[in-house]
């Protein structure tokens, strides 16, 4: 019993790891649009690649801030043979 609690108290690395993961997740977003776009791009790439085979170069992510409105523009070019019809998915979110 006392041996177990002794072992437990020495393992502080998992605490350090968890604190860092939570902190950095917040700081990366707070760092600004450039880093956010990079993160979004990477995550979108991973999500799309799970379902469709496509060229990662054909994904563009843009973020604009004008006045009170921010726009996030995602453009994905998907090869026609992958979906049957020539397709260009386009999404805009305000």
């Amino acid at each position, binding site marked *: 019993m006392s041996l177990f609690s002794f072992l437990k108290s*020495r*393992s*502080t*690395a*998992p605490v*350090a*790891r968890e*604190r*860092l*993961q939570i*902190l*950095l997740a917040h*700081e*990366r977003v707070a*760092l600004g649009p*450039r*880093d956010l776009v*990079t993160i979004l791009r990477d995550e979108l790439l991973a999500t799309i690649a799970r379902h469709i085979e496509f060229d990662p170069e054909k994904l563009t992510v843009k973020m604009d801030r004008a006045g009170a409105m921010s726009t996030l523009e995602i453009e994905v070019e998907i090869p026609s043979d992958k979906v049957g019809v020539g397709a260009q998915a386009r999404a805009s979110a305000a």
Partner: protein
Amino acid sequence: MSKVIVVTSGKGGVGKTTSTASLGAALAQSGQRVCVVDFDVGLRNLDLVMGAERRVVFDFINVAQGDAKLPQALIRDKRIDTLSLLAASQTRDKDALTTEGVERVIGELRGMFDWIVCDSPAGIERGALLAMRYADQAIVVANPEVSSVRDSDRIIGLLDSKTMRAERGEQMEKRLLLTRFDPARSSSGEMLSIDDVLEILSIPLLGVIPESKEILRASNIGAPVTMNASGGPAGLAYQEAARRLAGEAVPVAIPDQKKTFFTRLFGRRAA
């Protein structure tokens, strides 16, 4: 094709200068032409770690401002003749270095050396940004400790946004050099593991330098650990990191792993 490498970390005292000197010496030993450049204006130390503190006549700022020619300011190492040092200024204020001046000097160095290794000052201010600005690759030096890892994450963000490569939309290659690593403490859960740090920072590993008494001994005498055979495990780890930097596929050996069990056993008994 010459390569400009920045050795950076955000946090101070994690081993940037030691790593610059050790990697620079190791690369030069293989016959490549290497220049190590101190960007820490006002607090120069690379000259001291390299054992050249009494040979500094002209410095980086003298060259950047046109008061001296680059060959006059370069200090050639007495032990390895393909290794040179460009010292930082000790007296001028840190704003004396300009973007244009740095660009011109780096351009000139590219014509003379295979490797230009830039020792960045700590922090995320002008000096650190200038040190990384014209780099082709970055070595992020971190200790397995929360504040160092957090600051490294900030620096990675800056490497991806504030450098020439980033501004041109090109990829900035970044690799992690984990220093002051203690395998025994890591395996007993007292210290972040190599995998923990790699997962958090998500950049590839250049090397792991074990905590070692040889490092202090080396700076005491002004001879980087890679310069002599008695550099111990840290010297060996720097040698291997330099080979990886040069493109060789050298597997990362985790230092002293065999001792771990015994160290833990005795460590517990003693406690």
